[in-house]
């Protein structure tokens, strides 16, 4: 019995999930409520643990590539790229120009579909009956058709190889990509008109789930969540991996770091990705798409260890690999951005209502495949 004075209120122990309509997968939050206010929140994960890193030690280097699609099953292309980048760094493979451009195109398309769907799911958590999600899905379908035309599968692309990509973009695929990217600016305007000015949403999202800048840095938060709290850090600008230094694009950074900022940062990042895509599709060079010395069977990585990271849509996705010089990795570890971004969930939710806790979880944008690995 808490609450002194006349009115006694009783604390309510509620466990949201793992079977819950808005926890984005099998994720549980043990919440202690005082009335509607969240007093304590303990995230519980591990329901989707598939022992990915142990399996990778038993498979050849190439054998793990299709499994990386299943990490963050929303962005299979960026997972592939991170793994390929780590192996290329260890094996010292050089990737031809055209493959680098194709990789940038695929990664930015993945960022577009991930951010639009993340906002869509955030909105359906706020209660907007799936309308924004279905607009986002409409555009995502077109991107997935493009992925299927190129790599053969919509979500599980298994497209990148060590030293380049598996299939070249022929003229029809490039034309399809250009048509696709041309639609996005008008879609983003329509999306913003539906959402950004909406008073109900402003009331629901502003000053909710504020993540202070110091906490973001200390908890090594990465991606849109960190940039919304004012941490100006984007791996594309820091590491300049791939050919990102050739493109002229900007990285949006917010100030207060509440749910509304995280939403706006994703919208602005999508607009920047469209700019990158236009430049990449304009001046993609010819040439081979895979390094000549790349081998499929019996591919061996010289002994040693290495860590490579990319700016995945959800944050900094890194692969730490240790090789004994054989055809199989000795140790294979993934740095999942969603898992690390989840650690500050309780600090953001304290003092808010249960309806806010759901939105804050939605604004973190997690995918359980990556959180539990």
């Amino acid at each position: 019995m808490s609450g002194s004075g006349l009115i006694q209120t009783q604390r309510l122990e509620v466990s949201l999930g793992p079977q819950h309509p808005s926890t984005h997968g099998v994720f549980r939050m043990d919440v202690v409520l005082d009335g509607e206010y969240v007093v304590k929140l303990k995230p519980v994960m591990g329901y989707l643990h598939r022992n990915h890193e142990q399996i990778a030690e038993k498979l050849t280097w190439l054998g793990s590539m299709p499994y990386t699609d299943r990490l963050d099953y929303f962005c299979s292309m960026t997972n592939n790229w991170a793994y390929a980048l780590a192996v290329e760094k260890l094996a010292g493979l050089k990737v031809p120009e055209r493959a680098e451009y194709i990789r940038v195109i695929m990664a930015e398309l993945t960022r577009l579909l991930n951010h639009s769907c993340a906002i869509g799911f955030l909105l359906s958590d706020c209660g907007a009956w799936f309308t924004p999600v279905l607009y986002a899905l409409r555009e995502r379908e077109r991107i997935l058709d493009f992925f299927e035309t190129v790599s053969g599968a919509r979500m599980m692309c298994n497209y990148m190889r060590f030293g380049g990509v598996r299939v070249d973009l022929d003229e029809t695929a490039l034309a399809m990509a250009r048509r696709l990217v041309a639609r996005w600016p008008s879609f983003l305007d329509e999306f913003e008109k539906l959402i950004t000015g909406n008073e109900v949403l402003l009331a629901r999202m502003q000053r909710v789930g504020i993540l202070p800048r110091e906490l973001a840095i200390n908890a090594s938060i990465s991606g849109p969540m960190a940039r919304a709290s004012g941490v100006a850090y984007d791996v594309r600008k820091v590491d300049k991996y791939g050919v990102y230094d050739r493109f002229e694009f900007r990285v949006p950074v917010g100030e207060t770091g509440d749910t509304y900022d995280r939403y706006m940062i994703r919208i602005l990042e999508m607009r920047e990705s469209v700019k990158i895509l236009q430049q990449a599709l304009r001046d993609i060079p010819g040439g081979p798409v895979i390094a000549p010395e790349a081998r499929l069977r019996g591919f061996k990585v010289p002994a040693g260890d290495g860590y490579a990271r990319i700016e995945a849509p959800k944050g900094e996705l890194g692969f730490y690999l240790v090789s004994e010089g054989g055809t199989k990795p000795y140790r294979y570890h993934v740095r999942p951005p969603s898992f690390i971004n989840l650690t500050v969930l309780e600090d953001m939710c304290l003092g808010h209502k249960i309806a806010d806790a759901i939105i804050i979880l939605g604004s973190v944008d997690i995918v359980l495949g990556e959180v539990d690995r």
Partner: protein
Amino acid sequence: MDAIFQLLQNSGAPMPEWLALALAILLPIVIVMGLFLTVFAFLTWVERKALGRIQNRRGPNRVGPVGLFQPVADGLKLLIKEDIVPGAADRVVHFLAPVLVVVPAFLVLTVVPVAKGFVPVDLNIGVLFALAVSTASVLAVFMAGWASRNKFSLLGAMRGVAQVVSYEVPMVLAAVVVLMAAGTLSSIGIVEAQRGWCGWFVCKPWGLVAFVIFQTCAMAEVARTPFDLPEAESEIVAGYHTEYSGFKFALFQMGEYVAAITMGGVTVTLFLGGYLGPGCDLPRIGWLVSAGWFFAKLGLVVVINIWARGTWPRVRVDQLLAFAWKVLLPLSLINIPAMALWYFLPNRLIGWIASAALLAVALVGLTRLNAGRAFEKRSYRFIS
């Protein structure tokens, strides 16, 4: 009802007095129940089709020609589904709750004039009865939530009760303005008072404000977006009807949708001139035209509901209550003197302008007052 009774009396049919009375009572009930149940079934179909089209998909088109038999299919499915009652639930109250949700929804129908001369019961306190009965659904919501012994449904029930109670007051006050203008409580009287060119109450400044308040409160009363907190899927699973399945769940859905229709009916009666419309006074087919007008206006109100459901997100609980007590209530209170101004000033035009001015001042004042924590304009810096 009395008209039918007279009709049966002097039709000379060899009928004892009590049978005529019984018939006079039963006939309107059968007509109204049949009519509004088909409207309910049709409404679920319209809603799913409209929401589908808003969301760039086709909506149900498998069952029946254009998916028209989808409500029938839903009804049958829910009939066949197993009716699970949670172990810890309080069986009696758990059973009674869906019944009590549907009863007030249909009771309100008794006073809604469907067509000229067609009103199930011409109570002289029609509107008051409608508003009184619609508050009774509060108890059913609580019973459902409390009896299911489930944390989510309890939260949903508490929210539902708080919401209905706090939106009851502005709704009644918005109706008061109309009663003052019409001078009578009986629904037929109100509709007749809206005759004449631009006679509908919604054409008056205070009428428009009252219409907006009444429509918002009706949406809140029936828990439709943006106020559908009692069964907010994303937060508390399905609110007070989480633990219901099978036909009890169908009763809840029916209760909710029929309440939405009847509230629409009351709004049409109060503000949009019930069955009035050009051609409703024709000799023989007049009542058919007036019925057409009534259902057209009802359709308009229902479309607004569906449209809002497809677009707007949900309001949080404290914002919901704050909106009711801090914005709607003062606005409806100010609306009453505005109507008085319009009513007592001799020249209609000056009256019209005066009340419009007063209301405008009230609106601006309220928004300034409530904009304490205004939505700040965010700026973002870019690093290249």
